[in-house]
């Protein structure tokens, strides 16, 4: 069980999910059809979990080092967030979105064959590694979901039927995502103290992680005091996500990248 088996597993998952999405689309007011869609989603997700667990065992290290491995986690968390959001707030469109996004991440991984590297450098061998990365990826997935809500909000207001509930869903997601973002940042600081001797060194990745945090901080403060300026709030939310994307993928392409200690893929 390695990345070599990924095409097989990802095809099974994506096929299950696409059939599920078709059922979801035609399930308008038909509970039975919607149930079938859910069964397909859960089945696909179970296959996903099996792949992640087996990959972890086979690699003999947490599969969290490379971008492809983080995309895998993303594809694992998004459906979970979709399920929970559906159970809690009954948003079908959101469930569909999270499944579609997860499928997209699997497709990206399929098109970019990933490193089959079992090695893990000493700096990453720490009990902090798993909580730091998992908390971050979970937070990124939730915040990505919130930015999709923002896009829906924009679309709705162009159509002239914007509902404040949409923004409330965004708020819920941002609060959860921001709490995890804070934890990821602080776990990172505590770990850095153990590994590199200082909790904060303004490494480029740290700078952009801090900026992401500040971006959502602006959104939260703005929302708290200007509950009715929905357009501005949606814009802030979209911009904050752009910063998050720079932090996640973009840092490697910035002129500052050469000085970063967060680049772990040398090949």
């Amino acid at each position, binding site marked *: 069980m390695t990345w070599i088996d990924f095409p097989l597993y990802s095809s099974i998952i994506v096929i299950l999910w696409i059939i599920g999405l078709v059922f979801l689309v035609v399930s308008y007011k038909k509970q039975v059809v919607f149930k079938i869609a859910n069964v397909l989603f859960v089945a696909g997700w179970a296959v996903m979990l099996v792949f992640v667990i087996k990959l972890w065992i086979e690699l003999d290290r947490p599969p969290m080092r490379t971008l492809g491995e983080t995309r895998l986690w993303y594809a694992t968390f998004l459906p979970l967030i979709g399920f929970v959001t559906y159970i809690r707030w009954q948003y079908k469109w959101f469930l569909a979105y999270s499944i579609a996004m997860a499928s997209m991440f699997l497709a990206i991984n399929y098109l970019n064959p990933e490193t089959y590297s079992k090695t893990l450098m000493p700096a990453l061998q720490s009990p902090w590694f798993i909580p730091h990365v998992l908390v971050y990826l979970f937070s990124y997935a939730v915040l990505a979901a919130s930015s999709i809500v923002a896009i829906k909000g924009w679309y709705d207001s162009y159509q002239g039927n914007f509902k404040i509930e949409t923004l409330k869903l965004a708020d819920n997601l941002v609060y959860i995502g921001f709490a*995890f973002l804070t934890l990821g940042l602080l776990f990172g600081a505590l770990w850095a103290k153990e590994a590199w001797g*200082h*909790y904060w060194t303004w490494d480029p990745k740290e700078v952009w992680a801090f*900026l992401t945090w500040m971006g959502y901080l602006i959104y939260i403060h703005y929302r708290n005091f200007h509950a009715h300026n929905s357009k501005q709030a949606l814009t802030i939310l979209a911009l904050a996500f752009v910063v998050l994307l720079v932090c996640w993928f973009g840092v490697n392409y910035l002129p*500052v990248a050469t*000085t970063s200690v967060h680049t772990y893929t040398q090949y």
Partner: protein
Amino acid sequence: MSENNTKVQRNLWENPWGYVESFFIGIGLIITGLFLEVLNTSESTFTLSYPFNLYFLIGYVLILFVLYKWFSTTQLIRWLTKVPASISSITLVTLLVMVMGIIPQVTSENSLINNLGLNHITSNWAFLLILFQFLTCLGLISIKRILQFKWSNFGFILNHLGLFLALISGILGTGDLQRLSINVYENKPSWIATDAQKNEIELPFAFYLKDFLIDEYHPKLALIENKTGSIAHNNGKNLYLVEKGEKYSFKNFEVTVNDFLPNSGRVGARYEPVNELGSPPSASISVKNVENDSIQNAWISSGSFRYPYESFKISEEYSLVMTIPEVKKFSSDIDILTKEGERISTVLEVNKPFSYKGWKIYQLSYDDKMGKWSNLSVLELVKDPWLPLIYIGIFMMIAGAFYMFWMGNKITKNQE
């Protein structure tokens, strides 16, 4: 603190100050700071060290308290405790940090960047001034919520006061932070460390390195293009660890690893296990060309600082090579010797520092040219007396994050 929905035409600087005034003040602070940068050409950065940073902290908190308690009706303090001042200072701090995230923080070829100090944002006056406004807002509203304590403010106080504590003690603490590195050689005591400016500093204790150990992963197999010398297989990804008995396929070649020797030396046409300084790993491989079923056998080795590497040309186009093994773990078995004749034994490893008399001692690096035969271990010593205060701030924020995760959604629900 609800928003004024009926938009009334009002003049700039009319009571109360809003966003326009806030950004006006904030940008004014930044411009002032940049002017100071242009005028101030000295290289040294301004830092406060003990006891002045402690005086500053106590004085600052007292002043904030006094300002809130007795001057909260003045225009300035009212503005500082309101949202426009917070949002503008958060935004402007974000802006300057973004500059730091784009422009490399080293001496630049661009004289404008150098003169404005955009290559050392963390000690740039513009950044320090806007950060000062940010902290003042943060401090004042923390004091405000503490003085008007309600249980529903608990999460708010944890987050805001935690951030205030962590930031201010982090900033003031830099003056007292000591980071030294020391080269320690096997079977020799060492007590002269160097700081970032290469000054030698004598330690009150000595390190005696008993043994320096490196654990390595097995080397990897890679397919190289003969013409370019670059890795050809799967865009340079998917390199396989050399493992005895394993079979791997590269393009239309099937490679079997017949034998693997972690320490070996060339004896005639083959490698034999040896145990001497610089003996490299080697592997015996069979390569089967799937197209014509021909089989070739050879030994390859990654080489070391003492011996050359050995690759295997499998066709006109490609060769197989063995990469230099990656390090899995490195550690120093040391004794700390005190002037009183005490001897404390410990093993230092990356991610496993050792605390001794206010110092934290880290395994930093080694002689990477010598690799696992290095008899040099580089240790780092860090003393940060402000750390407890920073940790209090960080743990308050962690608690605040849990509170936020738990309560955040309820708060927004109750609002309407």
